[in-house]
């Protein structure tokens, strides 16, 4: 009793858990309840109940409300879908001049805007693609097909791979020195000799359009949010949802609005990449000391000058880290947007995965990862590079990189010219190594996979069966056994105990949205998979992080490993697990664990590092040993930071679970995948995406609130 008086929080949590379990046991599983398989849900059943809201009929299996809430928001996806179709096909028809037919044509306004936008995007992508790979679309856009027929010389020649490789090497040298330059050179040579040049340049052209546009819009919106509270308030909920929304889910409405192809992929990539840019711009501008702003004003700057001559240069580092984030998001989207027809490495990877050609998938995946790491390192080096304003340099010293590039350009052209003689009658390998004509290790990897299967089949199968039957299925059954009322009591109660009534109301709203949607069961499956992944990831991440923290070099090495792993697009993680475990839930969960372990490890190391050195010394002076210092001082102080890692781990796990639908799960992700191939799927896809985002936001809200309070309590806020 004394203990409970001293620790009232424990008593409150105990009470909450007792209520939760009491409700779970008190509410029986209804006789009519069964976890319905995906296919069966579309069959009209006379036993389903119906209601009509806003003119939309919703069918559902009615249960005891304590068990499952009726899907009162079931009309929302239908309504979103109908609204999109109305906007695209019927809203505000106007007369527009058609260049091809030379007459006015009636078209709805939004359709016209969308077509113009996609036309513009296609043009820019083609332009960059043709600079890298050659072609004639751009010339035709300015002239005509007749012109190009009459003047075949006007076709744009592509840049030889040697020039692009040399350019990347020189730029890397300028930004970071020899190490990065060697890495850039090797990467470019690798993608070229492995015959991945064309798809790589297609991917790069897509990123070279999406990234700058995302940067411009993100910076603009970030500045607007910094200047106006209203804009910030309007953007805040969107930013919040977009942070936890699976990128996959945004694809579906994009299909309706922008169609299929590279242009749609660029637009959708921008939608996903802009939020981190806005956030980092805002963060950078907010961190500027008021003295700097004062100094700017004192020097007579007007608003424009203050922003672009003082504030943005001061916040340069954060803004450039935003650029880095934009590039990383673009890479992860390069694979995902292959679902809506984006060409390049992502498409090849997806095709190889579909054919279960692990070797080819590995080659494409490695290529994407290498380019992603290269661009990540380059952009970070750019962010951290200090401009030397006072260096007294000669003309050559100032322009040596440009001179070297011009030299490389000339040599590259000469080499390509020599190549025309060397490789007469075949492909000019000094100009471009065609796709699938380079070296390939696919066979080697495929044989390796076969060997692994032949040798370890019994053990892998035994592990698979054990994991699925003994761990995953019971865990899933437990989650599905939770009555809606018990789940809501638990979540809202946790919100109340952690953050008070405000937090309770927020998580209540988010949970209710999911509970009132038609996919509560699926959301429970998603949560179960994510929870399983998060628990294992945290165990691994916290242990590895703590062990690595004991040695400075090990910590540095591990952070480097985390950096590299973090740059891999999420789809790449599916390749090795599919190699080992085939198409099973185990594959998805292992991919989730590997992917989600990264933030858990990183934040553990960073959290432990954030403990002030003074405290270490004070502890040593007090005579504590290493273990006592870790458990009594470092862990309690680093715990809030580690919890932020947990937050990231949850988001990563959710993303990977959703992508795991590609392998075959029965959660929300599977429905998003289905919505992708359904012409009426835009509403469903978006609503499902919001559901996943809300699961993430519930945890985000609880963890962030707790971290804030804990930091205040520890005096480190």
């Amino acid at each position, binding site marked *: 009793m004394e203990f409970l008086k001293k620790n*009232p929080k424990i008593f409150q949590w105990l*009470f909450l858990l007792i209520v939760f379990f009491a409700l779970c046991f008190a509410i029986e599983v209804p006789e009519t309840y069964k976890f319905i398989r995906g296919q069966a849900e579309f069959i009209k059943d006379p036993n389903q109940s119906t209601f009509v809201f806003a003119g939309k009929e919703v069918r559902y299996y009615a249960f005891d*409300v304590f068990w499952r809430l009726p899907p009162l928001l079931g009309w929302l996806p239908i309504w979103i879908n109908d609204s999109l179709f109305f906007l695209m096909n019927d809203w505000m028809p106007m007369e527009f001049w058609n260049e091809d037919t030379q007459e006015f044509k009636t078209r709805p306004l939004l359709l016209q805007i969308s077509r113009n936008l996609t036309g513009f995007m296609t043009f820019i992508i083609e332009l960059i693609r043709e600079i890298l790979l050659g072609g004639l679309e751009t010339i035709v856009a300015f002239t005509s097909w007749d012109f190009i027929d009459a003047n075949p010389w006007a076709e744009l020649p592509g840049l030889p791979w040697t020039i692009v490789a040399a350019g990347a090497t020189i730029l890397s040298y300028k930004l970071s020195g020899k190490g990065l330059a060697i890495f850039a050179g090797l990467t470019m040579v690798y993608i070229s000799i492995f015959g991945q040049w064309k798809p790589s340049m297609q991917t790069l052209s897509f990123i070279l359009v999406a990234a700058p546009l995302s940067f411009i819009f993100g910076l603009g919106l970030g500045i607007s949010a910094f200047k106006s509270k209203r804009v910030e308030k309007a953007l805040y909920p969107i930013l919040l949802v977009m942070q936890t929304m699976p990128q996959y889910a945004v694809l579906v409405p994009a299909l309706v609005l922008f169609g299929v192809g590279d242009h749609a992929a660029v637009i959708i990539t921008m939608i996903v990449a802009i939020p981190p840019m806005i956030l980092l711009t805002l963060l950078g501008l907010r961190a500027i000391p008021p003295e700097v702003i004062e100094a700017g004003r004192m020097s007579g700057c007007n608003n424009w000058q203050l922003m672009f001559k003082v504030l943005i240069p001061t916040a340069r580092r954060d803004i450039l880290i935003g650029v880095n984030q934009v590039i990383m998001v673009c890479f992860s989207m390069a694979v995902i947007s292959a679902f809506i027809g984006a060409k390049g490495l992502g498409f090849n990877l997806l095709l190889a995965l579909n054919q279960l050609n692990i070797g080819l998938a590995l080659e494409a995946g490695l290529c994407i990862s290498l380019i992603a790491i290269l661009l990540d390192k380059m952009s970070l080096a750019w962010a951290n590079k200090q401009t030397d304003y006072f260096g007294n340099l000669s003309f050559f010293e100032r322009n040596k990189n440009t001179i070297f590039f011009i030299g490389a350009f000339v040599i590259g052209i000469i080499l390509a010219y020599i190549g025309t003689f060397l490789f007469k009658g075949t492909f000019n390998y000094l100009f471009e190594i065609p796709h699938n004509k380079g070296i390939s290790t696919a066979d080697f990897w495929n044989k390796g996979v076969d060997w692994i299967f032949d040798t370890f089949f019994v053990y892998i199968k035994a592990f698979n069966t054990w994991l699925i039957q003994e761990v995953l299925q019971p865990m899933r059954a437990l989650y599905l056994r939770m009555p809606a009322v018990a789940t*809501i009591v638990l979540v809202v109660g946790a919100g*109340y105990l952690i953050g008070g009534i405000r937090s309770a109301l927020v998580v209540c709203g988010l949970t209710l949205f999911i509970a009132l949607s038609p996919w509560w069961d699926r959301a429970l499956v998603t949560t179960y998979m994510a929870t399983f992944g998060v628990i294992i990831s945290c165990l691994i991440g916290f242990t590895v992080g703590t062990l690595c923290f004991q040695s400075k070099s090990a910590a540095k090495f591990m952070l480097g490993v985390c950096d590299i792993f973090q740059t891999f697009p999420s789809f790449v993680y599916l390749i090795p697990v599919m190699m080992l475990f085939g198409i099973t839930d185990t594959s998805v969960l292992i991919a989730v664990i590997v992917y989600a372990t990264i933030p858990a490890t990183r934040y553990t190391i960073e959290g432990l590092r954030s403990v002030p050195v003074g405290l270490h010394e004070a502890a040593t002076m007090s005579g504590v040993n290493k273990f006592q210092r870790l458990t009594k001082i470092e862990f309690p102080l680093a715990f809030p930071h580690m919890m932020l890692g947990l937050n990231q781990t949850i988001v990563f796990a959710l993303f990977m679970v959703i992508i795991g639908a590609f392998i075959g799960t029965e959660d929300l992700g599977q429905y998003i995948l289905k919505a992708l191939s359904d012409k009426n799927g835009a509403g469903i896809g978006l609503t499902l995406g919001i559901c996943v985002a809300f699961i993430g936001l519930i945890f985000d809200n609880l963890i962030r609130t707790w971290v804030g309070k804990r930091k205040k309590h520890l005096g480190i806020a």
Partner: protein
Amino acid sequence: MSQENYFTKLKELPESIRQFGGLIIITLVIILSFLILNNIFGEGDDLVKRMKIEEDRIAEERKLNELISTLPSGILVTFDGTDHHRLSDEVYEKVCKATKLIPQRAIMGANFLNFRAHEIYTINGNKIDETFVEWDEQKNKCFAGFTVSGNNVGVDEKIKVSGEALSFLSTGIDTRIYYIKNF
């Protein structure tokens, strides 16, 4: 005045007790809200009954499907004198209950003997309104039929053609009516 005292007393309570009280209130509010919603949307026993009937029907259908899969593919008859598989009385009833489809061939055969039905059928683009296969408990016979409707020279007509299902076609997956004796 008494209300003010009450609030002051509440405010004076320790933080942990106030928070615990809040937790209890939140829990009760949630459970009460569910109770109200259950009164509005809960379908309870009625739904269970309906679902049970549906489940029985599905179970029965599954049993019949199992039976059908054991039957030989081809024509199944209810009478002697042919080389086709002869159904026993018990199996005849089960096959009848399991059969849903009446293919065009059987409809055309039945129409052939009903001139007016044939006329409406051909005038209206070979359209059939609905088909039915029923087991007559009193006569212990299987009856199948269909209705045709449409405009016949300015007159809207609807004719029901029905007769004993004398033979069935087993495809190995399902059974269909093969011949309707409507004379």
